């Protein structure tokens, strides 16, 4: 555990040191089947139910490459502005670990399928920062170990371990940045913004679930410091177990303050793997290995090289959807948004939802106001992501239309939305079932207005004297009497006309 005394104040860190970042992101593809066998690629499931001789490494079993995974890898490479290899191979990365059935990982080593690209990342203030990509390569995931007994689920001190191979062989793409210089005090923000932009891009490509909480997108952050303006590269650490965008930012920031404190006292940074602790926001050293790991990479002899034809690559390029950055620029112009409004929309992950609602007939203002305010509140209350709310953009558009027709007041509309969220059916069905029609029959309203005026003669007199502001009290009384089902605007008109 690192105490506060072991950390340097962040402002001082950035005054004295230049941070150097490197980010490695592992993405689980959501292909139907695993990387080298026909087993289902599904998150969850009873342990060891998505397994076969190939992914359990039964003697004699052989891998066959999943063509869709290769296609996804190429799409990712293209979206990251990479070159696509004309010829590349898989390699074996040899090391023993119980949750890796073959005791080697089939991966790519010095011949990645995509290399030499970049991703432009928009920071909070709208500045665009270019992160250069070194490579994106294909590999397979390992199984999962569950250590029973002992402390904190760690292998050390556990009584026994359980192995689940459902995840073994799930297709992974590892995306590695080049070293990212020049981030200065914004290093933590750049790291977060990069992972966020990458996540949005992968989502737009529809190649992965990109759920950091489920491990389908995992980030390792490499951080080192060099004394300001010396350009001397520092020793780096690699922080793993960073499971949210916020954690990416916190982990980088923490490592900077930890390393700076050590360097300031003349200490040396140990090149090591560290683990991010979500609860404390700190990193701790992983188990140190006595000998340097030698993975004894060599070309995988059970697989033939992959040589994507240029025609195929160009075909795939044509299928790429609009990238999130361009899409944002376009909607900002179309919907006439300020930078702040766009940022709110992006932060709420609501761009697609609003666009779909506009598609279904609402204006962008109406759609935005529903998604980023009322529905966002509902999502927070219900503890789900905005997109996971059980309401469709079409349903939201329908509610908007009902308000515009005068069939619903805003207050009633919110109640209709609650009904939809509670599974009571389409908006019209909720209106029907809950009896939420606006009272638009003037004779019924006139009666209620007259009753209210009679009950408050002094107020009625004020209105008659031209003090129109006093009409609010009568409108309020009418709304109360009609249980909110009247159109307040119409009630006000009636009050004024009856008093003139």
């Amino acid at each position: 555990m690192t105490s506060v005394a072991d950390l340097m104040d962040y402002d001082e860190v950035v005054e004295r040191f230049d941070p150097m970042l490197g980010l490695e992101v592992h993405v689980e593809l959501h292909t139907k089947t695993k990387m080298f066998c026909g087993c289902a690629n599904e998150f969850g499931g009873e342990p060891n139910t998505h397994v076969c001789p190939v992914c359990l490494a039964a003697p004699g079993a052989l891998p066959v490459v999943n063509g869709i995974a290769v296609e996804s890898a190429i799409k990712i490479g293209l979206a990251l502005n990479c070159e696509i290899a004309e010829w590349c191979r898989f390699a074996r990365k040899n090391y023993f670990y119980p949750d890796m059935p073959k005791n080697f990982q089939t991966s790519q080593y010095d011949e990645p399928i995509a290399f030499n690209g970049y991703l432009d990342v928009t920071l909070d203030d709208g500045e665009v920062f270019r992160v250069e990509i070194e490579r994106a390569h294909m590999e397979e995931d390992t199984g999962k170990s569950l250590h029973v007994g002992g402390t904190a689920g760690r292998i050390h001190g556990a009584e026994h371990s359980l192995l689940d191979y459902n995840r073994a062989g799930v297709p992974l793409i590892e995306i590695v940045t080049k070293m990212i210089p020049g981030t200065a005090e914004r290093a933590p923000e750049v790291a977060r913004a990069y992972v966020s932009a990458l996540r949005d891009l992968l989502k737009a490509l529809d190649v992965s679930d990109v759920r950091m909480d489920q491990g389908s997108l995992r980030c390792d952050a490499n951080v080192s410091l060099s004394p300001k303006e010396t350009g001397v590269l520092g020793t780096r650490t690699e922080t793993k177990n960073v499971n949210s965008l916020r954690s990416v930012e916190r982990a980088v920031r923490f490592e900077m303050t930890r390393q700076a404190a050590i360097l300031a006292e003349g200490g040396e940074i140990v090149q090591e793997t560290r683990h991010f602790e979500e609860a404390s926001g700190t990193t701790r050293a992983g188990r140190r290995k006595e000998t340097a790991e030698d993975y004894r990479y060599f070309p995988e002899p059970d697989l033939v090289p992959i040589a994507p034809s240029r025609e195929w690559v160009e075909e795939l390029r044509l299928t790429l959807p609009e990238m999130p950055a361009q899409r944002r620029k376009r909607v900002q112009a179309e919907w006439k948004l300020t930078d702040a409004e766009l940022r709110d929309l992006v932060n709420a992950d609501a761009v697609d939802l609003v666009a779909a609602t506009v598609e279904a007939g609402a204006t962008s203002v109406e759609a935005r106001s529903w998604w980023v305010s009322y529905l966002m509140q509902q999502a927070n209350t219900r503890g789900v992501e905005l997109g996971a709310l059980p309401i469709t953009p079409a349903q939201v558009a329908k509610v908007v239309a009902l308000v515009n027709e005068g069939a619903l007041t805003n207050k009633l509309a919110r109640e209709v939305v609650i009904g939809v969220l509670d599974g009571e059916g389409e908006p019209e069905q909720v209106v029907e079932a809950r009896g939420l029609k606006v009272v638009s029959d003037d004779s019924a309203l006139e009666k209620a207005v007259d009753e209210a005026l009679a009950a408050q003669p002094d107020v009625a007199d004020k209105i008659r004297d031209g003090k129109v502001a006093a009409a609010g009290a009568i409108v309020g009384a009418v709304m109360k009497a009609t249980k909110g089902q009247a159109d307040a605007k119409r009630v006000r008109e009636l009050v004024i006309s009856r008093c003139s």
Partner: protein
Amino acid sequence: MSLIRSTAAELAAKIHGGEVSAVEVAQAHLDRISSVDKGINAFLHVDTEGALAAAKQVDDDVAAGRPVASPLAGVPLALKDVLVAEGMPTTCGSKILEGWHSPYDATVTRRLREAGVVILGKTNMDEFAMGSSTENSAYGPTHNPWDLDRIPGGSGGGSSAALAAFEAPLAIGTDTGGSIRQPGAVTGTVGVKPTYGSVSRYGLVAFSSSLDQAGPCARTVLDAALLHEVIAGYDDRDSTSINAPVPPVVAAAREGASGDLSGVRVGVVTQFSGEGYQPGVLASFEAAVEQLRQLGAEVVQVSCPSFDYALPAYYLIAPSEASSNLARFDAMRYGLRVGDDGSHGAEEVMSLTREAGFGAEVKRRIMIGTYALSSGYYDAYYGSAQKVRTLISRDFDAAFATVDVLVSPTTPTTAFKIGERSGDPMAMYKADLCTIPSNLAGNAAMNVPSGLSADDGLPVGLQIMAPPLQDHRMYRVAAAYEVARDAAQGGPLIQRVPQLEGI
């Protein structure tokens, strides 16, 4: 002629013609195994029930007038224990897999079953196919039926001995550096390593993935060809499988049997003679070459200089791949588990199991391979070996530009005595000197017996090599030679195996 001394083709004809039942044929072989295998130790497992059931199925087809599943339906076969088969144990000759039953069939096994071939059981082998004598089996050595004090070759000594002992008319072997051909040579049987990629490796427990190839073993060239066509063909479960038609090897064997080789150009590899070659072996080889000339072939000398480096290159590439392929035997999911007593962690159990479960030769090769792949050594060892491999392929390409097939002795000596070379790995490795180049280049190669050595009366083998996917060329030459050899030597060589009854 008795059932057990018949060829596979003869047995198939009798079974399909209703002259004899497949069950009788299977039973005759099972009886033979019972009576002689104690002294041979060719079989690690005999599947009496499964064999009789498969035979019965063929008899039912014949009785009902249904077409038989293949030209070999009903013929018994011995399967090398490195190919997995449901319902039978698979050990690879190792303690580490003792008692393990595969949950799936190898593609070769499946094709055999679909062809109605009757699998008698699994045959002995050097542990994980590493060896040239079958002495490295954890289940005791196999004895050569020609002389029980001698080795039957390896790694597929169980399969070759089963053929020579008339325990089975057909067998499956696997050849990584000569493990089909060298056992064939020292037991006087036919063994074929098809073109790499033409027989699926799915379910073949890997020793060296880029070299391993399963193939047919038999007592005649035609029988080997018939079996070749049953097991070969594209398999989408093996990424290195070649998607091309199976070469017409049966037709070539029949054509060759007519005894005319005019127009065929045969190259004698000059590198494979001289020091280290037994005089009786060289004499038999020269006689065989003369025989080919008399059959009308044009014989020329061909130099393949890179072949001199084949052996060292092989002993870097094969162990490197093996060190990785054998990593999966870790006690976690199947096989032997040692030290799981609550006092050892998973990594210790892995290590204790591998220490207890692997034999000395397997450990030696895992260590060599681990070393050769280590950072700092990779380029000098594995990298250089791969370059040699390219040079060997170029030598073959150059040779096949001028000749149709290449020939050499299959192995430099006849069968050596059990124990004679077990303390000297280099002497053991030299048994594969002539066979290894075809594994490194991936082309087709086979052994056909060329008679008995004048110096010790033991079988000698002629190796015939053909370009990739031209397997039929060597079958034609082998079949022509076989007929001429039998005519010159007064009948089939194999019938001169000593009587084994009562051993």
